[in-house]
Protein backbone atom coordinates (compact mmCIF):
# COMPACT_ATOMS: atom_id res chain seq x y z
CA UNK A 1 0.00 0.00 0.00
CA UNK A 2 1.38 3.41 -0.90
CA UNK A 3 1.91 5.43 2.23
CA UNK A 4 2.47 2.43 4.49
CA UNK A 5 6.17 3.27 4.84
CA UNK A 6 5.36 6.86 5.71
CA UNK A 7 2.95 5.74 8.42
CA UNK A 8 5.51 3.28 9.87
CA UNK A 9 8.05 6.11 9.98
CA UNK A 10 5.57 8.38 11.70
CA UNK A 11 4.98 5.57 14.19
CA UNK A 12 8.68 5.62 15.14
CA UNK A 13 8.52 9.38 15.65
CA UNK A 14 5.35 9.02 17.70
CA UNK A 15 6.98 6.39 19.92
CA UNK A 16 9.98 8.63 20.55
CA UNK A 17 7.77 11.64 21.18
CA UNK A 18 6.60 9.98 24.38
CA UNK A 19 9.82 8.14 25.14
CA UNK A 20 12.95 9.09 27.05
CA UNK A 21 14.60 12.35 25.96
CA UNK A 22 18.00 11.97 24.28
CA UNK A 23 18.97 15.61 24.76
CA UNK A 24 19.39 17.85 27.78
CA UNK A 25 19.31 21.58 28.42
CA UNK A 26 22.95 22.51 27.84
CA UNK A 27 23.82 25.71 29.68
CA UNK A 28 21.85 24.63 32.75
CA UNK A 29 23.03 21.03 32.72
CA UNK A 30 26.60 20.19 31.84
CA UNK A 31 28.12 16.84 31.07
CA UNK A 32 31.25 15.87 33.00
CA UNK A 33 34.29 15.43 30.78
CA UNK A 34 35.97 12.05 30.65
CA UNK A 35 39.22 11.34 32.46
CA UNK A 36 41.24 11.31 29.22
CA UNK A 37 39.50 14.35 27.71
CA UNK A 38 41.92 16.48 25.71
CA UNK A 39 40.74 20.00 25.27
CA UNK A 40 40.62 23.46 26.72
CA UNK A 41 43.80 25.04 27.96
CA UNK A 42 47.02 23.45 29.09
CA UNK A 43 47.89 23.69 32.77
CA UNK A 44 51.51 23.78 33.91
CA UNK A 45 52.49 22.64 37.36
CA UNK A 46 55.42 25.03 37.89
CA UNK A 47 56.83 23.03 40.79
CA UNK A 48 57.12 19.87 38.69
CA UNK A 49 58.43 21.52 35.50
CA UNK A 50 62.15 21.08 34.92
CA UNK A 51 62.22 23.27 31.77
CA UNK A 52 63.51 20.49 29.55
CA UNK A 53 61.46 21.81 26.57
CA UNK A 54 60.55 18.28 25.42
CA UNK A 55 56.92 19.39 25.07
CA UNK A 56 57.80 22.10 22.62
CA UNK A 57 60.01 19.70 20.65
CA UNK A 58 57.21 17.12 20.47
CA UNK A 59 54.67 19.63 19.16
CA UNK A 60 54.03 19.00 15.45
CA UNK A 61 52.72 22.50 14.81
CA UNK A 62 55.06 24.67 16.90
CA UNK A 63 52.21 25.77 19.12
CA UNK A 64 54.36 26.09 22.25
CA UNK A 65 56.70 29.03 22.77
CA UNK A 66 58.99 28.87 25.77
CA UNK A 67 61.24 31.34 27.52
CA UNK A 68 63.73 29.41 29.58
CA UNK A 69 66.20 31.26 31.80
CA UNK A 70 69.22 29.68 33.48
CA UNK A 71 69.77 30.73 37.09
CA UNK A 72 73.07 31.64 38.72
CA UNK A 73 73.79 27.93 39.23
CA UNK A 74 73.09 27.20 35.53
CA UNK A 75 69.86 25.33 36.30
CA UNK A 76 67.05 26.04 33.80
CA UNK A 77 63.72 27.56 34.82
CA UNK A 78 60.56 28.40 32.93
CA UNK A 79 59.86 32.12 32.84
CA UNK A 80 57.17 32.12 30.22
CA UNK A 81 55.20 29.28 28.59
CA UNK A 82 52.93 30.42 25.78
CA UNK A 83 50.42 27.99 24.32
CA UNK A 84 49.22 29.23 20.93
CA UNK A 85 45.70 27.88 21.17
CA UNK A 86 44.92 28.75 17.55
CA UNK A 87 47.71 26.52 16.26
CA UNK A 88 47.08 23.63 18.62
CA UNK A 89 46.03 20.30 17.10
CA UNK A 90 45.04 18.89 20.51
CA UNK A 91 47.08 15.80 19.70
CA UNK A 92 48.29 15.32 23.29
CA UNK A 93 51.90 14.76 22.18
CA UNK A 94 53.17 17.51 24.52
CA UNK A 95 51.41 16.07 27.55
CA UNK A 96 52.75 12.60 26.73
CA UNK A 97 56.28 13.93 26.20
CA UNK A 98 56.44 15.41 29.71
CA UNK A 99 58.56 13.15 31.90
CA UNK A 100 57.57 14.81 35.17
CA UNK A 101 53.82 14.96 34.40
CA UNK A 102 53.83 18.72 34.80
CA UNK A 103 51.44 19.31 31.89
CA UNK A 104 47.73 18.53 31.85
CA UNK A 105 44.48 19.72 30.27
CA UNK A 106 42.05 21.85 32.25
CA UNK A 107 39.07 20.06 30.59
CA UNK A 108 37.24 23.33 30.00
CA UNK A 109 35.66 22.98 26.57
CA UNK A 110 34.21 26.51 26.43
CA UNK A 111 37.35 28.25 25.18
CA UNK A 112 36.11 30.46 22.35
CA UNK A 113 37.36 34.03 22.55
CA UNK A 114 36.44 37.39 21.04
CA UNK A 115 39.93 38.43 20.03
CA UNK A 116 42.78 36.70 18.31
CA UNK A 117 45.28 37.93 20.93
CA UNK A 118 43.41 36.00 23.61
CA UNK A 119 44.37 32.80 21.82
CA UNK A 120 47.89 33.14 23.19
CA UNK A 121 47.61 31.49 26.53
CA UNK A 122 50.29 32.09 29.18
CA UNK A 123 50.68 29.01 31.34
CA UNK A 124 53.05 30.49 33.92
CA UNK A 125 50.60 32.01 36.40
CA UNK A 126 51.31 34.90 38.79
CA UNK A 127 52.01 32.29 41.45
CA UNK A 128 54.31 30.45 39.06
CA UNK A 129 56.16 33.65 38.24
CA UNK A 130 56.57 34.46 41.93
CA UNK A 131 57.95 30.96 42.40
CA UNK A 132 60.28 31.53 39.44
CA UNK A 133 61.65 34.77 40.97
CA UNK A 134 61.97 33.08 44.33
CA UNK A 135 64.06 30.20 42.97
CA UNK A 136 66.14 32.61 40.90
CA UNK A 137 66.85 34.75 43.98
CA UNK A 138 67.60 31.68 46.03
CA UNK A 139 70.01 30.32 43.42
CA UNK A 140 71.67 33.73 43.16
CA UNK A 141 72.07 33.96 46.93
CA UNK A 142 73.39 30.41 47.09
CA UNK A 143 75.82 31.04 44.26
CA UNK A 144 77.01 34.24 45.89
CA UNK A 145 77.43 32.48 49.22
CA UNK A 146 79.34 29.67 47.53
CA UNK A 147 81.54 32.14 45.67
CA UNK A 148 82.16 34.03 48.89
CA UNK A 149 83.04 30.83 50.74
CA UNK A 150 85.32 29.78 47.94
CA UNK A 151 87.04 33.16 47.88
CA UNK A 152 87.48 33.07 51.65
CA UNK A 153 88.81 29.54 51.48
CA UNK A 154 91.27 30.60 48.83
CA UNK A 155 92.26 33.63 50.91
CA UNK A 156 92.72 31.52 54.03
CA UNK A 157 94.45 28.79 52.10
CA UNK A 158 96.74 31.40 50.49
CA UNK A 159 97.55 32.81 53.98
CA UNK A 160 98.48 29.38 55.25
CA UNK A 161 100.81 28.80 52.34
Amino acid sequence: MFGEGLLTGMGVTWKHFWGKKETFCYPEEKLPMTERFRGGHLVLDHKKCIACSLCSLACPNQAIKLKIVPDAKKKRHMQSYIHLVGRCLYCNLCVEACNTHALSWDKNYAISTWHREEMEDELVTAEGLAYFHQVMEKAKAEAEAEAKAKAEEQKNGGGDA
Partner: protein
Amino acid sequence: MPQTETYTLSMGPQHPSTHGVLQVRLDLDGESILKATPCMGYLHRGIEKLLESRTYVQGVPYTDRLDYVSSMNNNLGYCRAVEELAQIEVPERAEYIRVIVAELNRIASHLVFIGSLANDLGAVTGMIYAFRDREKILDLFDLVCGARMTFHYIRVGGVSADLPPEFAAKCEEFLKIVPEFMQEYEDILTGNEILQHRLHGTSPMTKEQALSHNMTGPNIRAVGIPFDIRKVDGYGVYPKFEFDVPLGENGDNWDRYRVRYLEIYESAKIIRQALDGLPEGDIMAKFPKVLRPPKGEVYSRTEGTRGELGFYIVSDGSTKPYRVHIRRPSFINLQGLDDMCRGMLIGDSVAAFSAIDPLMGEVDC
Protein backbone atom coordinates in the same frame (compact mmCIF):
# COMPACT_ATOMS: atom_id res chain seq x y z
CA MET B 1 11.14 27.73 -34.66
CA PRO B 2 11.94 27.72 -30.91
CA GLN B 3 15.25 26.15 -30.07
CA THR B 4 16.65 24.97 -26.77
CA GLU B 5 20.25 25.43 -25.87
CA THR B 6 22.40 23.86 -23.21
CA TYR B 7 23.41 25.96 -20.29
CA THR B 8 25.80 25.61 -17.41
CA LEU B 9 24.77 25.66 -13.78
CA SER B 10 27.29 26.06 -11.02
CA MET B 11 26.31 24.01 -8.01
CA GLY B 12 28.27 24.76 -4.91
CA PRO B 13 30.75 25.34 -3.35
CA GLN B 14 28.32 26.70 -0.78
CA HIS B 15 25.48 24.37 -1.67
CA PRO B 16 24.16 22.64 1.45
CA SER B 17 24.11 19.20 -0.13
CA THR B 18 27.66 19.12 -1.50
CA HIS B 19 29.14 17.76 1.75
CA GLY B 20 31.58 20.57 2.27
CA VAL B 21 33.11 22.80 -0.33
CA LEU B 22 32.66 20.97 -3.62
CA GLN B 23 31.65 22.82 -6.73
CA VAL B 24 29.96 20.87 -9.51
CA ARG B 25 29.53 22.39 -12.96
CA LEU B 26 26.39 20.92 -14.47
CA ASP B 27 25.82 21.19 -18.22
CA LEU B 28 22.09 21.00 -18.60
CA ASP B 29 19.59 20.39 -21.32
CA GLY B 30 16.41 21.57 -19.70
CA GLU B 31 16.52 19.76 -16.40
CA SER B 32 18.47 16.72 -17.49
CA ILE B 33 22.21 16.62 -16.96
CA LEU B 34 24.50 16.30 -19.96
CA LYS B 35 27.75 16.50 -18.02
CA ALA B 36 28.75 16.97 -14.40
CA THR B 37 32.26 18.25 -13.68
CA PRO B 38 33.41 18.24 -10.07
CA CYS B 39 35.74 21.19 -9.33
CA MET B 40 37.85 20.55 -6.29
CA GLY B 41 40.49 22.29 -4.26
CA TYR B 42 38.52 24.60 -2.00
CA LEU B 43 39.68 22.75 1.10
CA HIS B 44 43.26 22.05 0.05
CA ARG B 45 45.63 22.34 3.00
CA GLY B 46 48.66 20.61 1.59
CA ILE B 47 48.70 17.77 4.07
CA GLU B 48 51.05 15.66 1.93
CA LYS B 49 53.56 18.51 1.94
CA LEU B 50 53.05 19.16 5.67
CA LEU B 51 53.90 15.54 6.40
CA GLU B 52 57.30 16.03 4.76
CA SER B 53 58.24 18.62 7.35
CA ARG B 54 57.12 16.63 10.39
CA THR B 55 58.71 13.53 11.88
CA TYR B 56 56.98 10.20 11.28
CA VAL B 57 55.38 10.25 14.73
CA GLN B 58 54.33 13.90 14.48
CA GLY B 59 52.59 13.21 11.17
CA VAL B 60 49.82 11.08 12.67
CA PRO B 61 47.57 13.94 13.90
CA TYR B 62 47.54 15.40 10.39
CA THR B 63 46.01 12.23 8.99
CA ASP B 64 43.09 12.81 11.38
CA ARG B 65 42.21 15.78 9.25
CA LEU B 66 41.91 13.92 5.95
CA ASP B 67 38.68 12.03 6.38
CA TYR B 68 37.59 13.63 9.61
CA VAL B 69 34.51 11.41 9.92
CA SER B 70 36.62 8.26 10.20
CA SER B 71 39.93 9.44 11.63
CA MET B 72 40.75 6.10 13.22
CA ASN B 73 40.98 4.46 9.80
CA ASN B 74 43.32 7.19 8.55
CA ASN B 75 45.53 6.84 11.62
CA LEU B 76 45.59 3.10 11.01
CA GLY B 77 46.53 3.47 7.35
CA TYR B 78 49.40 5.87 8.01
CA CYS B 79 50.73 3.98 11.01
CA ARG B 80 50.69 0.68 9.13
CA ALA B 81 52.69 2.28 6.31
CA VAL B 82 55.29 3.70 8.72
CA GLU B 83 55.50 0.40 10.59
CA GLU B 84 56.06 -1.46 7.36
CA LEU B 85 58.76 1.01 6.39
CA ALA B 86 60.53 0.87 9.75
CA GLN B 87 59.84 -2.85 10.26
CA ILE B 88 58.09 -2.42 13.59
CA GLU B 89 56.22 -5.40 14.98
CA VAL B 90 52.95 -4.34 16.60
CA PRO B 91 51.84 -6.27 19.73
CA GLU B 92 48.76 -8.43 19.25
CA ARG B 93 46.66 -6.63 21.83
CA ALA B 94 47.27 -3.35 20.04
CA GLU B 95 46.19 -4.94 16.74
CA TYR B 96 42.94 -6.11 18.33
CA ILE B 97 42.28 -2.68 19.85
CA ARG B 98 42.96 -1.13 16.46
CA VAL B 99 40.40 -3.39 14.83
CA ILE B 100 37.80 -2.55 17.49
CA VAL B 101 38.20 1.21 17.17
CA ALA B 102 38.52 1.16 13.38
CA GLU B 103 35.33 -0.86 12.98
CA LEU B 104 33.49 1.33 15.50
CA ASN B 105 34.60 4.28 13.42
CA ARG B 106 33.36 2.57 10.27
CA ILE B 107 29.93 2.24 11.86
CA ALA B 108 30.02 5.92 12.90
CA SER B 109 30.99 6.96 9.40
CA HIS B 110 28.25 4.86 7.76
CA LEU B 111 25.78 6.39 10.20
CA VAL B 112 26.87 9.81 8.99
CA PHE B 113 26.34 8.54 5.44
CA ILE B 114 22.81 7.35 6.23
CA GLY B 115 22.06 10.59 8.04
CA SER B 116 23.39 12.88 5.36
CA LEU B 117 21.74 10.87 2.58
CA ALA B 118 18.42 11.20 4.36
CA ASN B 119 19.04 14.90 4.94
CA ASP B 120 19.94 15.54 1.30
CA LEU B 121 16.80 13.80 0.14
CA GLY B 122 14.71 15.96 2.42
CA ALA B 123 14.23 13.61 5.38
CA VAL B 124 15.81 15.68 8.16
CA THR B 125 14.30 13.41 10.80
CA GLY B 126 16.33 10.52 9.42
CA MET B 127 19.50 12.49 9.95
CA ILE B 128 18.70 13.16 13.59
CA TYR B 129 18.25 9.45 14.29
CA ALA B 130 21.56 8.50 12.67
CA PHE B 131 23.45 11.23 14.51
CA ARG B 132 21.88 10.20 17.80
CA ASP B 133 23.40 6.73 17.44
CA ARG B 134 26.73 8.02 16.18
CA GLU B 135 26.92 10.04 19.38
CA LYS B 136 27.11 6.80 21.37
CA ILE B 137 30.20 5.75 19.43
CA LEU B 138 31.76 9.17 19.95
CA ASP B 139 31.16 8.76 23.69
CA LEU B 140 33.10 5.49 23.52
CA PHE B 141 35.96 7.21 21.70
CA ASP B 142 35.90 10.04 24.21
CA LEU B 143 36.40 7.45 26.91
CA VAL B 144 39.24 5.76 25.03
CA CYS B 145 41.24 8.72 23.77
CA GLY B 146 39.63 11.89 25.09
CA ALA B 147 38.54 13.25 21.72
CA ARG B 148 35.32 13.07 19.80
CA MET B 149 36.57 14.00 16.38
CA THR B 150 40.30 14.07 15.61
CA PHE B 151 41.22 11.04 17.64
CA HIS B 152 44.98 10.53 17.22
CA TYR B 153 44.58 7.28 19.11
CA ILE B 154 46.32 4.79 16.83
CA ARG B 155 50.03 5.56 16.94
CA VAL B 156 53.10 4.32 15.16
CA GLY B 157 53.84 1.03 16.94
CA GLY B 158 50.50 0.51 18.65
CA VAL B 159 47.89 2.64 20.34
CA SER B 160 48.34 5.60 22.70
CA ALA B 161 46.67 4.09 25.77
CA ASP B 162 45.06 0.87 26.84
CA LEU B 163 41.28 0.53 26.79
CA PRO B 164 39.78 1.86 30.03
CA PRO B 165 38.27 -0.84 32.30
CA GLU B 166 34.68 0.28 31.69
CA PHE B 167 35.08 0.20 27.89
CA ALA B 168 34.20 -3.46 27.32
CA ALA B 169 30.87 -3.19 29.13
CA LYS B 170 29.94 0.05 27.37
CA CYS B 171 30.91 -1.33 23.96
CA GLU B 172 28.86 -4.45 24.65
CA GLU B 173 25.94 -2.20 25.56
CA PHE B 174 26.32 -0.39 22.25
CA LEU B 175 26.52 -3.63 20.25
CA LYS B 176 23.28 -4.73 21.91
CA ILE B 177 21.38 -1.72 20.62
CA VAL B 178 22.74 -2.01 17.05
CA PRO B 179 19.85 -4.22 15.80
CA GLU B 180 17.36 -1.92 17.57
CA PHE B 181 18.43 1.27 15.86
CA MET B 182 18.98 -0.47 12.54
CA GLN B 183 15.35 -1.61 12.69
CA GLU B 184 14.37 2.01 13.30
CA TYR B 185 16.20 3.11 10.13
CA GLU B 186 14.47 0.28 8.33
CA ASP B 187 11.12 1.65 9.48
CA ILE B 188 11.85 5.31 9.04
CA LEU B 189 14.03 5.30 5.90
CA THR B 190 14.26 2.02 4.01
CA GLY B 191 10.52 1.51 3.90
CA ASN B 192 9.85 5.12 3.03
CA GLU B 193 8.33 5.47 -0.43
CA ILE B 194 9.96 8.82 -1.16
CA LEU B 195 13.43 7.49 -0.39
CA GLN B 196 12.80 4.42 -2.55
CA HIS B 197 11.63 6.55 -5.46
CA ARG B 198 14.68 8.76 -5.20
CA LEU B 199 17.18 5.92 -4.95
CA HIS B 200 15.86 2.97 -6.97
CA GLY B 201 17.31 2.99 -10.47
CA THR B 202 18.97 6.41 -10.20
CA SER B 203 22.63 6.86 -11.19
CA PRO B 204 23.26 3.23 -12.12
CA MET B 205 26.78 2.13 -12.92
CA THR B 206 28.04 -0.92 -14.70
CA LYS B 207 30.90 -3.05 -13.41
CA GLU B 208 33.08 -1.85 -16.30
CA GLN B 209 32.41 1.79 -15.53
CA ALA B 210 33.14 1.35 -11.84
CA LEU B 211 36.37 -0.52 -12.61
CA SER B 212 37.49 2.01 -15.19
CA HIS B 213 37.08 4.78 -12.61
CA ASN B 214 39.08 2.69 -10.15
CA MET B 215 36.31 2.99 -7.60
CA THR B 216 36.76 1.18 -4.32
CA GLY B 217 34.92 0.59 -1.09
CA PRO B 218 31.14 0.41 -0.82
CA ASN B 219 30.84 2.07 -4.23
CA ILE B 220 32.43 -0.86 -6.04
CA ARG B 221 30.71 -3.43 -3.86
CA ALA B 222 27.40 -1.82 -4.85
CA VAL B 223 27.96 -2.87 -8.47
CA GLY B 224 28.59 -6.43 -7.34
CA ILE B 225 32.38 -6.70 -7.27
CA PRO B 226 33.52 -8.29 -3.99
CA PHE B 227 36.56 -6.08 -3.44
CA ASP B 228 37.24 -5.52 0.23
CA ILE B 229 40.89 -5.17 1.25
CA ARG B 230 40.15 -6.67 4.65
CA LYS B 231 39.35 -9.89 2.71
CA VAL B 232 41.51 -9.55 -0.41
CA ASP B 233 44.68 -8.48 1.35
CA GLY B 234 43.89 -9.37 4.98
CA TYR B 235 46.10 -7.02 6.98
CA GLY B 236 46.63 -6.96 10.72
CA VAL B 237 44.44 -9.49 12.54
CA TYR B 238 41.51 -9.22 10.11
CA PRO B 239 42.00 -12.76 8.71
CA LYS B 240 41.10 -14.11 12.18
CA PHE B 241 37.58 -12.71 12.03
CA GLU B 242 34.58 -14.03 10.19
CA PHE B 243 32.49 -11.52 8.31
CA ASP B 244 30.69 -11.22 5.00
CA VAL B 245 31.11 -8.63 2.30
CA PRO B 246 27.66 -7.28 1.39
CA LEU B 247 27.20 -6.78 -2.36
CA GLY B 248 24.75 -4.89 -4.52
CA GLU B 249 23.28 -6.01 -7.83
CA ASN B 250 22.32 -3.07 -10.00
CA GLY B 251 24.92 -0.52 -8.96
CA ASP B 252 22.31 2.17 -8.41
CA ASN B 253 21.98 4.55 -5.47
CA TRP B 254 19.76 2.11 -3.65
CA ASP B 255 22.50 -0.52 -3.71
CA ARG B 256 25.04 1.99 -2.45
CA TYR B 257 22.74 2.71 0.47
CA ARG B 258 22.02 -0.95 1.18
CA VAL B 259 25.67 -2.02 1.03
CA ARG B 260 26.63 0.50 3.68
CA TYR B 261 23.58 -0.33 5.72
CA LEU B 262 24.49 -4.02 5.79
CA GLU B 263 28.16 -3.26 6.45
CA ILE B 264 27.18 -1.84 9.83
CA TYR B 265 26.04 -5.32 10.86
CA GLU B 266 29.29 -6.85 9.60
CA SER B 267 31.40 -4.31 11.50
CA ALA B 268 29.40 -5.04 14.64
CA LYS B 269 30.14 -8.74 14.09
CA ILE B 270 33.88 -8.04 13.84
CA ILE B 271 33.86 -5.88 16.99
CA ARG B 272 32.11 -8.60 18.97
CA GLN B 273 34.67 -11.21 17.87
CA ALA B 274 37.56 -8.86 18.65
CA LEU B 275 36.17 -8.03 22.09
CA ASP B 276 35.76 -11.73 22.88
CA GLY B 277 39.25 -12.62 21.73
CA LEU B 278 41.07 -9.56 23.11
CA PRO B 279 44.44 -10.88 24.36
CA GLU B 280 46.47 -9.48 27.24
CA GLY B 281 49.84 -7.88 26.62
CA ASP B 282 51.58 -4.71 25.55
CA ILE B 283 49.89 -1.98 23.59
CA MET B 284 53.00 -0.37 22.18
CA ALA B 285 55.95 -1.81 20.30
CA LYS B 286 59.46 -1.00 21.40
CA PHE B 287 61.31 1.22 18.96
CA PRO B 288 63.72 4.15 19.28
CA LYS B 289 62.14 7.49 20.16
CA VAL B 290 63.84 9.15 17.23
CA LEU B 291 62.55 7.00 14.41
CA ARG B 292 64.81 6.72 11.36
CA PRO B 293 63.40 4.16 8.94
CA PRO B 294 65.92 2.74 6.46
CA LYS B 295 66.09 4.19 2.96
CA GLY B 296 63.32 2.92 0.75
CA GLU B 297 59.71 3.25 -0.16
CA VAL B 298 56.47 1.59 0.81
CA TYR B 299 52.87 1.52 -0.35
CA SER B 300 50.50 0.26 2.28
CA ARG B 301 46.77 -0.03 1.78
CA THR B 302 43.93 -0.50 4.19
CA GLU B 303 40.19 -0.62 3.76
CA GLY B 304 39.12 2.82 4.82
CA THR B 305 35.47 3.63 5.27
CA ARG B 306 35.20 4.99 1.76
CA GLY B 307 37.48 2.59 -0.05
CA GLU B 308 41.12 1.74 -0.52
CA LEU B 309 43.13 4.14 1.60
CA GLY B 310 46.75 3.94 0.55
CA PHE B 311 49.84 5.65 1.90
CA TYR B 312 52.94 5.81 -0.24
CA ILE B 313 55.95 6.92 1.78
CA VAL B 314 59.51 7.43 0.58
CA SER B 315 62.20 7.47 3.22
CA ASP B 316 65.65 8.96 2.76
CA GLY B 317 66.87 7.54 6.05
CA SER B 318 66.26 10.75 8.02
CA THR B 319 63.70 11.43 10.74
CA LYS B 320 61.21 12.92 8.29
CA PRO B 321 59.63 11.33 5.21
CA TYR B 322 61.07 12.45 1.89
CA ARG B 323 57.69 12.21 0.19
CA VAL B 324 54.22 11.11 1.22
CA HIS B 325 51.43 10.46 -1.21
CA ILE B 326 47.97 9.57 -0.05
CA ARG B 327 45.59 7.59 -2.22
CA ARG B 328 42.33 9.06 -1.04
CA PRO B 329 39.31 6.92 -1.91
CA SER B 330 36.86 9.86 -1.86
CA PHE B 331 38.88 11.71 -4.48
CA ILE B 332 38.96 8.77 -6.86
CA ASN B 333 35.35 7.73 -6.27
CA LEU B 334 34.23 11.26 -7.04
CA GLN B 335 35.50 10.90 -10.60
CA GLY B 336 32.56 8.61 -11.25
CA LEU B 337 30.12 11.46 -10.62
CA ASP B 338 29.95 12.39 -14.31
CA ASP B 339 28.98 8.90 -15.43
CA MET B 340 26.50 8.65 -12.60
CA CYS B 341 24.78 11.95 -13.37
CA ARG B 342 24.48 11.83 -17.19
CA GLY B 343 20.88 11.63 -18.27
CA MET B 344 19.62 12.16 -14.73
CA LEU B 345 17.74 15.18 -13.40
CA ILE B 346 19.27 17.94 -11.26
CA GLY B 347 17.63 16.54 -8.16
CA ASP B 348 19.24 13.16 -8.81
CA SER B 349 22.70 14.69 -8.79
CA VAL B 350 22.18 15.47 -5.10
CA ALA B 351 21.34 11.83 -4.47
CA ALA B 352 24.42 10.81 -6.48
CA PHE B 353 26.78 12.97 -4.35
CA SER B 354 25.38 11.54 -1.19
CA ALA B 355 25.55 8.00 -2.48
CA ILE B 356 29.23 8.35 -3.43
CA ASP B 357 29.75 9.70 0.10
CA PRO B 358 32.77 11.91 -0.63
CA LEU B 359 34.37 13.82 2.18
CA MET B 360 35.94 17.06 1.06
CA GLY B 361 38.69 16.94 3.67
CA GLU B 362 39.89 13.80 1.97
CA VAL B 363 39.18 14.85 -1.63
CA ASP B 364 41.26 18.02 -1.38
CA CYS B 365 43.72 16.65 1.19
